[in-house]
């Protein structure tokens, strides 16, 4: 069986500045795949390339064995859903309207919804715990609720793959775990391949099945959390001193950045 995503010798640059250099890796079906790395390492660019928002200058991205450039926009939208980091909510759509919009790749130009689409929309809202908010306007919601609305919209798109760009950024701790629990539920119950970019290595350690650590557009490490999140690789990636031990919650690493004043005491 072909992997969900297969990337071969992918290069990308903004002007003359290379952002991604010669990346090759696979993402298996049903994985919860988290891309981590320092600022400017090319994480978001990689995600946008997979989503088809920007086209690769060089190299190949295959989805289920077919090169991404062979897909029409609409066909691609039935395979991959994308949740950006921030979404403008300045026009007052209701929650159910936004979630229903996820059906549009399956509908005609005017997006005339059928009974089936309303059922799928309702299920997506139940899955994400939004039933109570169905008729609220999106600009009245909190950051975490908003994020769930756009995830529900992605679920409604009924794709095999969902891509998310830092879905937990700017959320408080409770909402962070809630969103990540949702990601795990998506992957386990719906068998969707979830690929996300995250800044939070500890969330990545707790939830990720496979991690990809990028630095300056190159792969530093790829594998299970305990293979990737080692003291050596993390120090090489972030260039600061970190404490890596085992989390008291289970068999996954816990990463703690070490403040400078504590390092002096250690000396």
């Amino acid at each position, binding site marked *: 069986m072909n992997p969900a995503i297969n990337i071969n010798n992918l290069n990308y640059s903004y002007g003359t500045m290379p952002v991604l250099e010669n990346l090759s890796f696979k993402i298996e079906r049903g994985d919860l795949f988290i891309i981590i790395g320092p600022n400017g390492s090319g994480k978001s660019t990689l995600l*946008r390339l997979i*989503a*088809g*928002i920007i086209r690769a200058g060089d190299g190949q991205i295959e989805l289920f064995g077919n090169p991404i450039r062979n897909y*029409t*926009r*609409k066909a*691609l*939208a039935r395979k*991959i*859903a*994308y*949740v*950006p980091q921030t*979404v*403008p909510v*300045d*026009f*007052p*759509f*209701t929650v*159910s*309207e*936004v979630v*229903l*919009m*996820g059906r*549009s*790749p399956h509908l005609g*130009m*005017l*997006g*005339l*919804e059928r009974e089936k689409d*309303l059922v799928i*929309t*309702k299920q997506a809202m139940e899955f994400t715990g939004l039933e109570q908010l*169905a008729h609220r306007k999106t600009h009245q919601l909190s950051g975490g609720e908003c994020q769930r609305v*756009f995830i529900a*919209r992605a679920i409604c*798109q009924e794709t095999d793959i969902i891509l998310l760009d830092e879905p937990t950024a700017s959320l408080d701790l409770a909402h962070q775990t809630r969103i990540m629990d949702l990601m795990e539920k998506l992957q386990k119950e719906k068998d969707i391949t979830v690929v996300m970019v995250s800044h939070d290595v500890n969330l990545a350690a707790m939830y990720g099945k496979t991690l990809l650590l990028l630095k300056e557009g190159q792969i530093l490490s790829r594998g299970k959390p305990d293979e990737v999140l080692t003291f050596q690789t993390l120090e090489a990636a972030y260039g600061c001193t970190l404490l890596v031990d085992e989390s008291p919650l289970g068999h996954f690493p816990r990463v703690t950045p070490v403040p400078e004043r504590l390092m002096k005491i250690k000396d």
Partner: protein
Amino acid sequence: MKPHFLKRLLPVAFVLSILLAGVMFLGISVGSTGSNFGDVWRSLLTNTRADSVLEAIIWRIRLPRVILAALVGATLSLGGLVFQALLRNPLAEPYILGISGGSAIGAILGIILGLSYFPGVSIMAFTGSIGTLVLLLIMSQGQAVFKKDSLLLSGVMVNAFCSAVIMFLISMTRDARLHNIMFWLMGDLSTADIGQVGFLAAALLPCFILIFWLSNTMNLLLLGRDMAQTMGVNVKIVTLTLLITTSYMVSITVSYCGLIGFVGLVIPHLLRLVSGSDHRILVPASILGGGAYMVVCDLLAKILPSQGEIPAGVITALIGAPLFIFLLKRSRQ
């Protein structure tokens, strides 16, 4: 769960159609030549030629004028709606952005050069509207998807510049055709004849249909370019199509009846309050509602002055400008 889309569209469309038909009938009935509703009704519906003078006034003067008002109102209101969605700014509107002003410059240049209304003046007006649009987009570029105030400020400046150019052009010419230009400039609907109105309808109706066809795509665009693209929208082509179609519609109406402002601000705003943000409903509702609103404004322009008439653009500005200030103040809070 919201009911099916058609179940939401039909009541809105029904109410607005009745409203439009009602005010159009009122518009046909009221005029300086005294008449009563019964006579007008009979004249419209039957072939009995009881009063030939009234007959002529109704069919040759009032009916074209009312249809023209409805078409212009529909176009300007729809233009406002499209610009608001594409620029993600609820205060955007062809007149406020200076698009109408640019069309007017083109149209006046065409008149001065002695071109015929079609295609000469129309093409000049279209060129003017596209020119100001490009200028506006360049000026507000690089400011994170058009920050609300900077876009409006650019529009105000473009508008001021256009007004100055228009005044300059008028002062440079002694052409007799420009005698009435001030009246035209303020938005005048009184010179319609049925042939021209038919031509206008033929030029505008395909645009209405095209924009309705793209209305669901406009909804998706409001979720941001990236998300729209990953839902199958060709963002560049759709945006370009909508901008050019809208500029074309606006330039056609401007070259025909001058500058009528704020219609595209008032109507979409009211409709959004009533029926939400779904453009599949807002597009037809803006066409019907904008038409009705313009017919009423033209009627007011006809009956308010103690003698003669005032341009309809005066009425729309008297209503629209205060609303604009109110909305601007509220959007800052």
